[in-house]
């Protein structure tokens, strides 16, 4: 049976192959062929890919946005507001919902932006602290406000001149909301009013936290009587201890967007949540869940439209941005999305649409009526919600490290 120098035998076999000239060359070629294709492909790669750079086309635009942040048609195959934009301006929009997380977004595109490359996008929708960072690092095109007549005329005051971009040099408000607490009264058994309610041992195993450091620490700081914009490292340490002080297993988990499903299904009785999500939840998935801004305060945040450097169609980008500050487009958008849309006259327009729909679709008309007031933050909501602190690099690292311990690290 085998194994008398089996290797030598096999080597022999393959060397026999090599020894015959014709076959040698052919076999060699065949084997090298594969390798050659690989090497060749590699070498042509940069060339090929360089040649594939998108040419600047004034009739094309690529927009990177968060999921479920734009209106969809009934069969979910198109976006009416974008279609209307294309009809009016002649510009095709490639719309992508790949922005899932602010830090992930930065991480993914920082390399290109730092090198001045085209990221492939003409418009993006990051959050406030990201805008601040991108602007500071010189990654954003300055916005030419002469090209934004709608914004100048219609933008509500609360949405201008925010801490991360006081002169709106680089960004305009897209959509915004509040981070607060959502709960199902049937599962909690009582009404909820404070952040401490979230930590109530009665809800052990059914309470949800956020994996976003700024949101979670923000709410906790507020409950300890500290405004996030003014928080010191000691304040954050105290907040960390508050969160670590709950018994193990109290927080079922620290979620990103996934808390939504768990709230709907009842796996969570109470959780940190975003206002617009709950508006949507009430309309479509679970109308028992309520949203509140905790007594000690909630976090107010928004996402912004920015134009990254290296983009191919800056003209078109401006057109798109201005389009959404027209009342019609804003109505199409917010009737679907439900977050704060700072366009003057929007609530009146929505009520108009409600009346128009009353004859054919009274249910939808009611929905619109209920929605009209929610797209504009009330005075209460503005007064009792607070914004992020602008963090230095060291602070950011320290705060992140402290938060990692809360997550279980």
């Amino acid at each position, binding site marked *: 049976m085998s194994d008398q120098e089996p290797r030598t035998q096999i080597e022999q076999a393959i*060397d026999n192959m090599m020894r015959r000239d014709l076959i040698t060359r052919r076999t060699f070629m065949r084997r090298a062929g594969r390798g050659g294709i*690989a090497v060749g492909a590699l070498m042509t790669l940069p060339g090929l890919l360089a040649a594939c750079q998108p040419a600047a086309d004034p009739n094309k635009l690529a927009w990177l946005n968060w999921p479920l942040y734009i209106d969809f048609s009934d069969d979910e195959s198109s976006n009416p507001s974008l279609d209307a934009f294309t009809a009016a301006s002649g510009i095709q929009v490639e719309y992508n919902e790949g922005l899932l997380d602010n830090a992930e977004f930065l991480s993914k595109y920082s390399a290109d932006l730092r090198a001045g490359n085209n990221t492939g996008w003409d418009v993006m929708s990051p959050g406030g602290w990201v805008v601040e960072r991108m602007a500071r690092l010189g990654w954003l095109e300055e916005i030419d406000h002469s090209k934004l007549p709608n914004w100048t005329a219609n933008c509500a005051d609360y949405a201008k001149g925010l801490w991360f971009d006081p002169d709106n040099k680089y960004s305009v408000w897209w959509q915004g909301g509040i981070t607060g607490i959502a709960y199902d009264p049937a599962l909690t058994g009582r009404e909820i009013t404070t952040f401490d309610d979230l930590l109530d041992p009665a809800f052990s195993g059914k309470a949800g936290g956020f994996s976003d450091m700024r949101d979670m620490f923000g709410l906790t700081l507020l409950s300890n009587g500290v405004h996030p914009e003014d928080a010191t490292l000691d304040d954050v340490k105290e907040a960390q201890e508050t969160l670590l002080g709950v018994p193990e297993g109290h927080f079922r988990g620290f979620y*990103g967007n996934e808390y939504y499903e768990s709230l709907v*299904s009842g796996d969570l009785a109470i959780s940190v949540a975003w206002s617009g999500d709950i508006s949507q939840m009430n309309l479509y998935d679970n109308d028992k869940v309520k949203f509140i801004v905790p007594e000690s305060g909630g976090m107010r945040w928004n996402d912004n439209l920015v134009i990254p450097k290296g983009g191919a169609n800056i003209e078109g980008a401006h057109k798109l941005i201005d389009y959404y500050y027209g009342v019609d487009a804003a109505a199409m958008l917010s009737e679907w999305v439900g977050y704060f849309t700072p366009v003057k006259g929007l609530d009146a327009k929505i009520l108009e649409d409600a009346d128009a729909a009353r004859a054919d679709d009274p249910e939808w008309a009611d929905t619109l009526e209920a929605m009209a007031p929610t797209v504009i933050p009330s005075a209460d909501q503005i007064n009792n919600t607070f914004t992020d602190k602008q963090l230095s690099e060291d602070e950011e*690292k320290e705060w992140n490290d402290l938060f990692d311990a809360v997550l279980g690290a």
Partner: protein
Amino acid sequence: MPSLRRGLTPLLLLLPGGGWLVVFFAVPMAFMLLISLQQGTFDTGYQQTWNFGIYPEVIAEYWELYLRSALFAVITTIVTLAVGYPVAYTIAFRGGRLKNALLLVVVLPFFVSFVIRTLNWRMILSDNGMVFGFLKDIGLLQADFHFLATPASVIFGLTYNFLPFMILPLYVALEKIDRRLIEAATDLYATRAQAFWRVTFVLSLPGVVAGSLLTFIPTVGDFITAEVIGAGNPQVFMVGNIIQRKFLDSLDYPAAAALSFVLVAVVMALVAVYTRLVGNERLAG
């Protein structure tokens, strides 16, 4: 001349794959190693300061995570082996003409995206879902019982996802065992159990090793199962989760890279111990 040719053959065999790995794996990893020794911030950029101190630093702070991850991985591997071996055995020895078909049935669910499978498991196993809701309704379980967001559920999810990684190598090893050896054993008055443990199992060890490695190694670095099924519960926070956070949330690349290389070292050490125990010859070197 002949000796040159003899030396050439293995080289030719290795060139395409090896070359690919060098360009797309070794070189980037070298870059990452350099990054782990840098200091700085995302904004100001990173300087190559050769900060070797980062390694003791991350180990001191996160060693418990490594322990927890290794533990989860070991348990998952054992469970997968216990569950997968009988299946591989049945297909190899009792499969007959259905062998290939059965094998492909084992692999078939895994042509569906892992994310979809995991999401559907989350739905099935949700607190008041089709399994536990039913059990609660008929009174077999307490109302506040939950399976998701516990260490057990994460191990369950990991086991499910890595079963084919265990079954396939086991099958491959079992299938080529010469049946006459087993016959010989029983001819020599071995009981069926003895014949199994002393002949079949021993001969299948390369498959056990391959399967265990293919299961253990990726499990240690997992973070998606912990996130989706574990719901980000602090009790299931694994090394993979902290690495992901540091790369994608905190943007602390040097630490993330350092944590990754420590993970690689830990896994390699554990694997070295394992293969020593099992016996090197069996690894088919």
